[in-house]
């Protein structure tokens, strides 16, 4: 199977002038975790995730300490600090976006899964002739792959 058979074709994306607020509203409305940022031609120029957006609100110590399990109570950090709220208002998606990772629409499932594994992605962008044509999640691809495995197992067991 190739990735074009299990990807979603309706991709919610944002222009690079979008604000964090726009990204937040997209996440809320569509229940998605990954937002590709595209230019006018539909070519992906970046990607932002719910993880990147949330990171704006996380306390500083989270990025500075290797282990934070010993912190049981977040005290005055239970709600976002005024500092983080200010920061969120002042940033645009272009400030927090990462380089897009994409594969062509005829990519094999194993290759797609390998790329996602290496880049720690939950969603993979799918291109055709450089244009964004779909998006596939780890569940989409993973499930399709596992269906293939289970089907071939059943076939082998039957033949045996």
């Amino acid at each position, binding site marked *: 199977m190739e990735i074009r058979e299990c990807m979603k074709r309706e991709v919610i994306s944002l222009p690079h002038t979008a604000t964090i607020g726009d990204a937040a509203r997209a996440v809320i409305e569509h229940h998605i975790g990954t937002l590709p940022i595209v230019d006018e031609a539909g070519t992906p120029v970046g990607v932002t995730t719910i993880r990147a957006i949330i990171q704006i609100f996380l*306390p500083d110590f989270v*990025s*500075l300490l290797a282990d934070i399990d*010993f*912190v*049981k*109570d977040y*005290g005055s950090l239970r709600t976002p*600090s005024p500092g983080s709220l200010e*920061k969120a208002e002042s940033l645009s998606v272009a400030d927090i976006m990462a380089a897009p990772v994409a594969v062509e629409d005829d990519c094999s499932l194993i290759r797609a899964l390998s790329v996602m594994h290496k880049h720690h992605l939950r969603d993979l962008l799918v291109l055709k002739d450089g244009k964004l044509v779909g998006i596939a999640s780890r569940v989409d691809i993973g499930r399709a792959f596992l269906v293939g495995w289970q089907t071939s197992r059943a076939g082998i067991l039957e033949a045996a």
Partner: protein
Amino acid sequence: MAAIIALILSDRLDRTIAAMVGAAVMVGAGILLGFYSEAQALEAIEFDALALLLGMMILVSILEPTGFFQYVAVMAGRLSRGNPWRLMLLLGGGTAFVSLFFNNVTTVVLVGPVTILITELLGLSPVPFLMAQALLSDTADVGTSVGDPASVLVASASGYSFVDFLTHAMPIVLVAVLVTLVMLRLLFSHELSMRPANPQVVNSLDAAAALQDRRTARRVLIVLAVTIGLFIFQQTLHLTSGFIALSASAAALVWVQPDVREVLARVEWLVLLFFIGIFVIVGGLEAAGAFEPVTTVLAGLGRTQPMLLGIAIIWVVALLSALVDNVPVTIAMISLLEGLAAAGVDVSALWWAVVFGAGFGGNATSIGSGANIVIVSLSERTRAPITPRLWSRRGLPVAFATCVAGSILFALAFPWLGR
């Protein structure tokens, strides 16, 4: 050579690279022009100091992943009960105490993030506490012969022992620490009078969970205790500091059996190479007679008014270490003092002047000491970055006050220091 010094100062070239290039150039020039040989260059390297540094670095490296440093910081947070001044005393004092034995840059790298954590939980700005940790540990760590590279170098050159440092340097350093605390209280009085809304949040920090490898930490600390014991008796036992430190690190390695490659990866080889380079460069300068004009001028003063010379040394070394890393300054001063001794000046008290200047001067600027640089770069990853100007506004008064106190005490204790 001036170009190399300028490069180190301007930070455009990594200082280790600059030192190594400088050393190569110095030896090359020495051979070509006939003033410096390879044998002389090798002699200029103080291997005992390097061995001491390496041994202690290995011990710290084994201790780092146990979470011990984070544990100390978390305990400070818990004991403070959320009170800002008590928190500053505990965090600053704890960092300073640890830096008496371990280099304060590593200490601050590990304790700084926990400081940021605690202040964030309490809703306070981390700035006063981070600065307190840097300023206090910079001031205090010259009190022992192992706490700061400057002390290690002076101990090696002067022949003063661990105990000599405790009896001569430490009392004055303790007063300087008190002065620093008073200054911190005054300079940060506004921030320290803030009352956190929920001070009890520090009680929820699980100190035991922060200390992830209790067994290894205990073993390393036992080795450290024995090491200090050996330092105290090193003269009776006729052991050099370097030997003690390396043996201690060997003992810790065999007792703990960590992943040696990881332990050695954390050792700061760049610092050691930097030292070697500077030793060779300064040795070359000395062989070329670059120090002679200065030595001649100072020798006169040294014979007639040694106490004044000592005070002058405190201030000059302090000024230089505020601007440049205190290692090259110390190594250069050591050469100078050796030259003065050869000219018949009694330098026994002057060594301490170098120690005090190197320890107190670094507080003045954000680049004055490695710990300051680490604190500033940590702060830049938070919402309250410390600018060089902010640092100087607080650090300069502290450096000034401690140098004044140091000078007064140096003058008063001059006869004792010369013994």
